């Protein structure tokens, strides 16, 4: 197999970097779409701000509510999108399915063909989610891949890998950690990370 180059160079000092063909293409397409009134500079700025506002905190709020409200969790398992709307979040127009971890079952998500991901509730996917290695291996050797993230899943627990598509995305409802009975929703939400909702890690244990 040919050794691949990293998909993303680390951020460079743009002043010192020659413009690439695709950076020039991006500016050209943007300016032509402005000229043809497909969208305006204000539309673009608003969209860039919306991207910056999205992050794992929205998804974590949903999980924390599901942990304290079993009825909400059932509604979330029927439709993440309508449960998110209940909390005033915008889940976008692509259906998202919640998959719940239990003592017998651990879930993990991937998009083997590309990078489909519940980005409206978690933000942009990390580089490794889009990497060749994760996409290739997690469906075949999920236990080994999870170990690379420091997550040991007992052989007695089934691991189920969900392959996302352009029309259906997934997010994981992790198990609520022990000794969290006295915690309120906002404290619980802090135990839920992006990687927890992808399924490569477990919810954090409170200090």
């Amino acid at each position, binding site marked *: *197999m*040919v050794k691949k180059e*990293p*998909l*993303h*160079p*680390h*951020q460079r000092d*743009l002043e010192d970097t020659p*413009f690439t063909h*695709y*950076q*020039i*293409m*991006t*500016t*050209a*397409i*943007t*300016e*032509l*779409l402005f000229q*043809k009134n*497909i*969208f305006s500079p204000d*539309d*673009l700025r608003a*969209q*860039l701000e*919306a*991207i*910056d506002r999205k992050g794992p905190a929205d998804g974590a709020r949903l999980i924390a509510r599901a942990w304290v409200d079993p009825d909400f969790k059932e509604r979330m398992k029927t439709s993440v999108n309508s449960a998110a709307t209940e909390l005033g979040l915008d889940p976008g*127009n*692509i259906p998202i399915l919640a998959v719940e971890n239990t003592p017998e079952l651990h879930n993990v998500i*991937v998009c*083997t*063909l*590309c*990078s*489909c991901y519940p980005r409206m509730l978690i933000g*942009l996917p*990390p*580089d*490794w989610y*889009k*990497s*060749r*290695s*994760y*996409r*290739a*291996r997690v*469906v*075949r050797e999920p236990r080994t*891949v999870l170990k*690379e*993230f420091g997550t040991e899943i007992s052989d007695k627990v089934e691991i189920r890998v969900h*392959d996302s598509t*352009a*029309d259906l995305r997934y997010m994981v409802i992790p198990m609520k950690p022990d000794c969290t009975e006295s915690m309120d929703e906002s404290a619980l939400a802090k135990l839920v990370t992006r990687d927890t909702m992808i399924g490569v890690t477990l919810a954090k244990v409170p200090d």
Partner: protein
Amino acid sequence: MKPHLRRPHDLGGLDDGPIDRNEHLHEPWEKQVDAILRLLNDKTRNILSIDELRRGIEELGPGIYEKLSYYERWIASITNLLIEKNILEIDEIGRKMAEIERRWNEDRYPPKES
């Protein structure tokens, strides 16, 4: 029976090395590509679907697919789809790219006064 031939995006189940967990911050142009897609895909414009974006990426073909970074694949696919849908013409894109490159180079290396 011979195994079927895989296209370059079809990675599920293949062997590969350890996962590189380094994460880079998105560069401004990468976020801009993401924003362009979201605008073209939104309910009011409805110009590109996510399936079409993926199909465009898959059609980049072997060699190119592996060589390009993630958002390079996206802008290449978006550009090809806008040409296919007669929203932009290949010639005007070429002219605009030449203009931008000239403009940027002049900003960086202003012509010396004689």
